[in-house]
């Protein structure tokens, strides 16, 4: 038999193994994806057995009225100040955004490090929040409205402002009252506010006894921007600035605060506008952040060295872990810190 000419040689049989393997793998994957994860029979709306003590609760937040079937027992918090308030009220916080950060920067009311983390404060993972099955989610209005609306369809969400520079302490009180009503801890809330008022009165008395009522001060923190230092000042519209006002101290930096948090920004040069030589410069820092910016990075800065409070040795550091956007717990700690700084 003559050999077939090359052009008519039959092509080699096409390999069928690769497509077959792929099809088999795909089928296997598809089979594993079948089924359901819910062990109970899906009924219309699962309940968590919360129809116990206390009936329906309605609170008002920045978005309107929020209705709860019962006072919330397990709460997920998406901002540190609200977490601190909840822990002060004795509520169970079952999930928190950035747990590690909270335990570094806001340590007055410590949180169990094993608390599930639901992501960053700016972009919490909605999946993680859902997986914890909470009764209530509390957040600030810094999160996108559309996201809050999404959450609110399934879980009651209370959205409050971080602070209000028109009346920071009044807003703190209304925050505590709202959270207390929502969680059925009104007694604890009243006690908390009463304790805070007593603490402020005690601070005023201590200042008067030391003859330092009306002493000038500023409160600041800052960070190192690759060589240049940015300073953030707390005006009287800020939470801590308002505490200083209540104590009878005179804040030397009153302009430029933003409408929410009452914070103003400047650089080291701008601090020369503080003219009263008796001013106490109180600053916050954290060792986890690289320690004290104002004494380390600025030590060699000639402008800093000329400032009246530096030459007069009136620079004081507050204890680590006080959260300047918190509630009565941090507020009481700040009363102590300010009184100590001004009288020492």
């Amino acid at each position, binding site marked *: 038999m003559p050999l077939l000419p090359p052009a008519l040689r039959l092509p080699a049989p096409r390999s069928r193994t690769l497509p077959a393997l792929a099809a088999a793998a795909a089928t296997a994957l598809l089979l594993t994806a079948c089924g359901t994860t819910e062990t109970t029979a*899906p009924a219309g709306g699962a309940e968590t057995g919360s129809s116990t003590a206390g009936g329906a609760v309605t609170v008002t937040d920045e978005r309107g009225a929020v209705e709860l079937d019962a006072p919330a027992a397990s709460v997920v918090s998406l901002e540190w100040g609200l977490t601190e308030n909840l822990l002060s009220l004795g509520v169970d916080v079952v999930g928190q955004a950035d747990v590690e950060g909270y335990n570094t920067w806001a340590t007055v009311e410590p949180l169990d490090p094993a608390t599930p983390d639901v992501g960053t404060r700016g972009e919490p993972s909605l999946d993680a929040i859902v997986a914890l099955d909470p009764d209530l989610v509390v957040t600030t209005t810094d999160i996108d409205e559309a996201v809050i609306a999404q959450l609110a369809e399934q879980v009651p969400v209370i959205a409050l402002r971080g602070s209000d520079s028109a009346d920071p302490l009044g807003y703190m009180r209304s925050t505590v009252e709202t959270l207390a009503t929502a969680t059925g801890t009104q007694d604890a809330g009243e006690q908390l506010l009463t304790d805070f008022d007593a603490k402020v009165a005690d601070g005023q008395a201590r200042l008067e006894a030391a003859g330092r009522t009306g002493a000038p001060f500023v409160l600041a923190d800052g960070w190192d921007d690759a060589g240049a230092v940015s300073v953030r000042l707390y005006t009287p519209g800020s939470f801590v600035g308002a505490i200083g006002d209540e104590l009878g101290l005179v804040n030397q930096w009153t302009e430029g605060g933003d409408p929410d948090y009452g914070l103003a920004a400047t650089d080291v040069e701008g601090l020369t506008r503080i003219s009263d030589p008796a001013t106490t410069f109180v600053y916050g820092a954290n060792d986890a952040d690289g320690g004290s910016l104002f004494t380390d990075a600025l030590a060699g800065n000639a402008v800093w060295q*000329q400032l009246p409070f530096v030459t007069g040795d009136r620079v004081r550091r507050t204890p680590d872990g006080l959260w300047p956007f918190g509630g009565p717990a941090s507020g009481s700690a700040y009363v102590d810190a300010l009184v100590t700084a001004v009288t020492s």
Partner: protein
Amino acid sequence: MTSATTAARPSPPSGRGAGSRASLGAGAVLAAGALALVALSVAHLLQGSAAVSVAEVVRAALTQLPGAPGAGEDAAREQAVAVLLASRLPRLAAAVLCGVALGLAGTLLQSVSRNALASPDTVAVNAGAYVAVAVVAVTGVSLPFYAGGLVAFAGGLAAALLVLVVARIGADDPVRLVLAGSAVALALGSLTSVLLLLFPQDTLGLYAWGSGSTAQGGPDAVLRAAPVVVVGALAVMLLCQRLDVMGLGEDAARSLGVPVGRTRLLAVVGAVLLSAVAVTLAGPIGFVGLCAPVLARLLARGVPGLAPHARLLPLAALTGALVVVAADVLLRLLVPADVAANVPTGVVTSLAGAVLLVHLARRLGVVGAGGAVSGTVGGGTVSSSGTLASRRRVLAVAAVTATLLVATALAALLLGERVVLLGDVANWAQGLAGRQVSFALDQRVPRVGAALLGGACLALAGCLVQAVCRNPLAEPGLLGITPGASAGAVAVVLLVPGVGVWPVMGVATAVALVAFALVLRLAAGRAGLGGGLPVERVLLVGIGVSTAAGAVTTLVVLLFAPWSPQLALTWLAGSTWGRSGEQLLPAAGALLVGLPAALLAARVLDLLSLDDDVPRLLGVRLGRARLGLLALAGVLTAAAACAVGALGFVGLVAPHAARALVGGRHALAVPVAVGLGALLVCAADLLGRTLLSPTEVAAGLVTALLGAPYFVYLLRRSATSR
């Protein structure tokens, strides 16, 4: 020149006179520039957040002069002196040094690449330096000034060489270099963002590097940087003669004995060194390396004595210093001093640079860097290797793409913090699911839908843009649409607290389309929109408008919400986080209209991607077709921005991959590209959500990280295939 050559040509009528007049002219210009710099510097020194009056500053300066009467014991005066010496002089010195370094670097890059658009920004030097510094910071090592500068230099050099090699330095295609550079810069920037996200404690203080600010904490950094800049400047002056000869063209230079390759390498290394010093000193101040050389060359065209590099380089250095100091002065005039302390100088220079880039682009063909900027797009054909794909192959590709798409979409639905299975999905669809499952799917389904629709729209827009622009490196995000949408959305979200979804989307789309219309209007020039749209002008004007929109966004965020930028970041990041069903409607509508339209116009697209004449011969109205297709691409991109925010690379990579798989015919390539785009973004979103959960990496970062190596491979391949 020998006497033979001078005899061959008629000597100019007034030989020596013209030469000395030219020198006088050059000298006059340089002197005038120096005077302007001194005047601006004085203004710069008088601005600042300290409450020190002009009289006090002047008095303090005078007392520092030797032989002046001794300073009084006045504390206010001492403080004025301290302010002057410790805060403002270093700031001024940093501005001048950065301007000088960036001006010189830009001129060198433009001269050796013979491309009026080359600059440290467009060849990704700044992005390379930034990522190198971030990588080192992540390892926990803190570097002193010179070591940090060295790391920045190494990173910048690697990035610049990558861009210059793949963009074929010296070729007559300026647009290619800019596109390659912006793509590499985008990829490296995304890598840096991921590092900053994952290691926030180690990389504290690097956020400001993204901006570029001349503020200094003291004279130390400036005193360390000054010798490097001076030495670098003197060293590059040694290359003057060679650069002059290279301006005649590569072949002419070789025949005159100039070692072209080595000169190029030395010039690039010098440029990167100067940029690295500037970046280490003050962060990346954008566009100065583009503005200063262009302004210098414009002046040199008017004054002939300035053309040789021996005078052009000092002029460019002077112009650079002027630009940076002027930007600082302008910023502090417009914005209160306290706020200005936090606004980076880079914002103002970017705005100015964007305007200049648009102006340059409109005069394309007139301004040159020793070589004419070509008037046609030299990007080559859009199709791939040219083989026609067989029907079997096309069907196989389509089947595999469809299967992968379905599989990825299902995986994205099922996977997450709360894993669900198909039965749960079925229950949810019937409304019978339990609370956890229904909640998980309620917020996951819009996200998956946003990823799919956004990816599809962007890929389709990319196909259209690449066909119309006849440049495989074009991307819909470069037309100014996505940054315009981001600017609009951020402005609304920050200025009107608590605003709903529809107003934000409406404003974003409106601003995006206005930006796009502006790009088209500026690119068309006096000829009007119907008279054939010069495509490389569209791209360059688009880049300029994009940069301006980005600078405006940064400015808005810094002025109105410096303490809570999260709202803005969600839009800028290219993320599906928090998407609701309503935000998908524009993208769904655009795709429903756009895909059939593109398929109907497939033949026109095929013809447009060949050249300018064939379509005309075959009766296609070139101007109208281009305008219509670009408008469709604009609407698709704006709709995609509503769905996924500012997502890059998909419109670049998906059409390419489709053409590589099924060939260049748009009737086949467009559907495959749409499928691949949806697949890519869905996979990126899935990876970003699940890899590091609960921390989420935005889908835009993942697409940039995945798309960049592929893009570099594409560039290499298209560079070697010619």
